[in-house]
């Protein structure tokens, strides 16, 4: 609904909008700036902006002295793994609900969403015990399963809204053309829904990457991803501001970049197509 406006008004609104945006972004910016300062400079009073001692040392320290690469790798495996596994289960389910809807389809979708409302702490202990019993505790596979199940309702919902936009006639045409159900999904549905599947994937990688309950409670060291790493890092505070910032920056940058690319789809995805 953008409309033509006078240059003066545009200037004013531009200034106001940029100020607000910078305020919102400032904590991230400040963290990134701090990550390039020496520890002394990071805690200097009054705070140093341009006069600070700049250094790359923090990144080196975090990278070499901590197990950052392992945490990073765990994050990648867990978030990508849980997303791919989730997609494999969700694509057939979303196909069913989008193209062969029944009377209960809407209820089923709502039920799936409602499983996300279950407070995680309520089921923490049983899950903890079950995971220890069957050897999934502190393993990547265990976290992949847990995060997949946690995000499955969202994956199904998102795919459902994307699939809904594909005309059923095209799938029927494929059926008339002799395609089996498998061929129909592989050759027709998936390529047509690829943009939707990609943004579902992206958003779920982000959600899994940032998850900070199961990743903290179901791991100790071996399978801990970056979220657990940061949570543990923040304990000895005060003296390690710059290093903490560097570690934080390294934990969020990959996802920040992915997120910026996917922000348009994010709205559609997370609102289940209700807002476009």
């Amino acid at each position, binding site marked *: 609904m953008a409309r033509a406006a006078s240059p003066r008004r545009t200037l004013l609104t531009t200034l106001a909008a940029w100020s607000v945006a910078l305020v919102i972004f400032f904590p991230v910016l400040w963290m990134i700036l701090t990550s390039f300062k020496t520890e002394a400079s990071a805690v200097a009073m009054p705070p140093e902006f341009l006069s600070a001692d700049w250094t790359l040392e923090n990144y080196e320290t975090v990278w070499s002295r901590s197990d950052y690469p392992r945490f990073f790798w765990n994050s990648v495996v867990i978030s990508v793994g849980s997303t791919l596994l989730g997609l494999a289960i969700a694509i057939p389910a979303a196909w069913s609900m989008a193209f062969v809807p029944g009377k209960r389809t809407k209820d089923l979708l709502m039920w799936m969403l409602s499983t996300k409302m279950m407070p995680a702490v309520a089921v923490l202990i049983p899950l903890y015990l079950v995971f220890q019993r069957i050897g999934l505790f502190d393993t990547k596979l265990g976290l992949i399963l847990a995060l997949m199940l946690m995000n499955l309702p969202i994956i199904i919902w998102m795919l459902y809204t994307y699939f809904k936009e594909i005309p059923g006639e095209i799938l*029927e*045409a*494929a059926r*008339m*053309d*002799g395609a*089996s159900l498998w*061929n129909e999904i592989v050759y027709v549905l998936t390529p*047509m829904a690829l943009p939707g599947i990609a943004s579902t994937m992206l958003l779920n990688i982000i959600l899994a990457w940032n998850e900070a309950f199961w990743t903290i409670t179901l791991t100790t060291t071996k399978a801990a991803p970056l979220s657990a790493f940061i949570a543990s890092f923040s304990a000895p505070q005060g003296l390690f501001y710059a290093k903490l910032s560097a570690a934080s920056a390294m934990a969020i940058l990959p996802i920040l970049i992915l997120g910026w690319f996917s922000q348009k789809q994010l709205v559609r995805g997370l609102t289940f197509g209700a807002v476009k």
Partner: protein
Amino acid sequence: MGKIQLSQVRKSFGDVDVIPGIDLAIEDGEFVVFVGPSGCGKSTLLRLIAGLEDTTSGTIAIDGKDATHLPPAKRGLAMVFQSYALYPHMTVRKNIAFPLKMAGMSDAEQAARVERAAKVLNLDSYLDRRPGQLSGGQRQRVAIGRAIVREPSAFLFDEPLSNLDAALRVGMRQEITELHQSLKTTMIYVTHDQVEAMTMADKIVVLNAGRVEQVGSPLELYHSPRNLFVAGFIGSPKMNFLEGAEAARHNAATVGVRPEHIDIVDGGPWQGTVGLTEHLGSDTFLKVTLDTGETVNVRASGEVGLHHGDRITLAPQAGKIHRFGADGKALA
């Protein structure tokens, strides 16, 4: 071969009988049009034949073999959808080759068949484009191409021209008719447009509320509609219906006269006043309010110098008056 036999085919969605029970025989090589107002069940009937829907009861036989429970792919039929249903991520070539690929045909055979179909449909120069880059008419041709490469025993068309503009529709109509003449394959064509039905069909099936009202050649339906519904549905402009005294004079509950069967003559039995006039050059359409209060449409050929408010007298042509009983059925 493409003989399709429906016996007592019934379809209900829940408690609603969409098709209460239809018997119909479609002969090999026939061009059959299912026509009727929207919601009359014509598309459902086509989808039953295609195998995209289950019949609730009854049997569908194709070439003498029971196909009621066969999946769509196994029936040997091809379908052209209203939205064309082209695969947007495939080129025209791949779209046309898709059914062949699904049938496991060799690449060389696929290429040869696509080539042949493209030639027939004048699609040679578009083969490497995607559906999104084509006009409506071209997309339509691709959809037909995808249907003909399989050499099916019958083609099913589901309102294929309704997304085209008026001029293109006439052209495509002729192309499909010509295609039928050269392929001589059974075609079943669904439309709500009676003009398409009249111009294309060997045999028209008029459907209303899931029931077959009448089956016959276009001219049979035009000259001897079996009931009020068919009389009113076939023919354009619509047949005029008169009740009351005029009908009683012919011993009927209702009489119908087509606009083209009313002459403007001095001393005719009906007096009236001209209301709306439409001068098309070749024809003139008049809306006349009779002194009895009823309105009739008149189609006069050529140019007629009548205008709003003129008094005229009309005469229905002898032998062109259709008589209907109180139950709506035509009287002999």
